[in-house]
């Protein structure tokens, strides 16, 4: 139990700085767009809080293993506990970031209404389905999307760690190739249609299902991993 607590505390200490910096930047950016909207009412401005959080989370989780695996294994965690701790930490991370988004969204909505700024839209994931959905539903959707991307980042991190730069970039290459092949083969139309035909609950369930599946793959790939990474 103490190992789990210690592992979470280690990750918290390692990432709290990143969290503060990013939250500060994100908040500033969103309020800057609000001010811009008030100054130049003719231009339509979209704020992109969730997209930035997703990108940032992905970048951070791509470095997860490099930053914490050696330290936590030296501290005595076994590999399953390490995965449980990092998975748990990223879940907390998603909830915390979604909470920040929740507050920012609430404030922005309040201010746009208050100052009657119509040129600023605050896009939210709930808008995919129903504009009238509450911010709480949006919070759950945000959190599940962030968590899914965190797990994808973690998988990337594991692949780079286990198979070195060559393996990592090859993996990326294959994924990108698949994405490009998707354009002529018209995969995206049905995908978007499918996504839009869901509802919020299905979206959350799908995100969490993907996240759990990816975490399981990560767990399989790290069962015998050493702290000496494939890069050296």
């Amino acid at each position: 139990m103490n190992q789990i607590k210690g592992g979470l505390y280690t990750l918290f200490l390692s990432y709290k700085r990143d969290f503060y910096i990013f939250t500060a930047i994100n908040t500033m950016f969103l309020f800057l767009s609000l001010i811009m909207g008030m100054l130049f009412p003719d231009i339509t401005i979209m704020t992109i809080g969730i997209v930035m959080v997703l990108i940032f989370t992905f970048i951070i989780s791509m470095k997860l293993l490099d930053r914490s695996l050696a330290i936590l294994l030296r501290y005595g965690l076994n590999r399953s506990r390490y995965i449980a701790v990092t998975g748990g930490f990223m879940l907390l991370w998603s909830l915390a970031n979604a909470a920040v988004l929740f507050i920012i969204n609430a404030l922005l909505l309040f201010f746009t209404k208050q100052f009657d700024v119509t040129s600023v839209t605050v896009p939210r994931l709930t808008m995919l389905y129903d504009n009238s959905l509450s911010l709480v539903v949006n919070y759950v959707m945000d959190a599940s999307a962030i968590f899914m991307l965190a797990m994808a980042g973690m998988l990337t991190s594991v692949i780079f760690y286990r198979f070195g730069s060559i393996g990592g970039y090859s993996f990326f290459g294959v994924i990108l190739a698949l994405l490009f092949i998707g354009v002529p083969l018209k995969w995206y139309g049905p995908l978007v249609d499918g996504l839009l035909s869901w509802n919020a609950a299905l979206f959350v369930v799908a995100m969490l299902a993907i996240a759990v599946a990816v975490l399981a793959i990560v767990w399989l790939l790290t069962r015998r991993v050493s702290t000496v990474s494939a890069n050296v």
Partner: protein
Amino acid sequence: MNIKVSQLTKQYRNRKVLDEVSFNLQGPAIIGFLGHNGAGKTSFLNMLAGLVAPSSGTIEVEGEPVFNNGELMKQVCFIAETGNFPLHVSIGQVLTLNKLFFPNWNEELAEELLEQFSLRKKDKIKNMSKGMVSALGIITGLASGAPITIFDEPYIGMDASGRQLFYELLVEQHALEPRTFILSTHLIDEASNLFEDVLIMHEGKVLVHQPYEDIQTNIVKAKGRQEELEAYIGSSKVIHRSKFMNEHTAVIMHENVPAAAPASLKLESIKLQELMVLLSKNKRREIG
């Protein structure tokens, strides 16, 4: 704590760093783990700490295999050269972490040692000098109370007085509460008097594993005339030969306590440091 190593092999791509090594370490003791660069020391210690999986063979502590053994690893504290702590963390936070990870953590001792090494709790790892981070590693190892505490070159960047303090504290802690300390170091001259047991790795094999006192009596340097020297060597292993001013010198490794030498031969004990230098000059086949 009993550490049993059987047929342990570690292969990286096409390089064999450990080759079917078998030995037992019996604690409590301060064990010197020596060998020149690339001899397989760090690979072994990484496997003992459960960080790296063996290619084949096993390491068992008290009869349990170490790899991926989360419960057993609470009893092992591994302090490596670098990278023991997260960067954006203060010393005080490291102590909090240590308390969570080591069941026998001695907070009182840690606080006292911080003072002795002049470290301040609010300093962050990333702003500290190499020597200060090394000192924190040493404090962690000593105060961990872990029955097996491994120091792998723990004093990078520390000055002579800091290292001296480390040796004193190590002996003191070992006297107060005997544990199994494994110390891997290149500064053999400084540390050799601490060792009860010495293990010398050479090109993936264990070359010497003897109590330190036996090494001092069994490995000798003999000087004199060639014929007398050859007669004295008999069937023992010769680690190194040389000749200067027509006088022949041989460093001899006896299996057991050697017979008395003729008075015309000059016998000297050899320092571990010098032995290591000679070993690294020689190829294995010449010795075996």
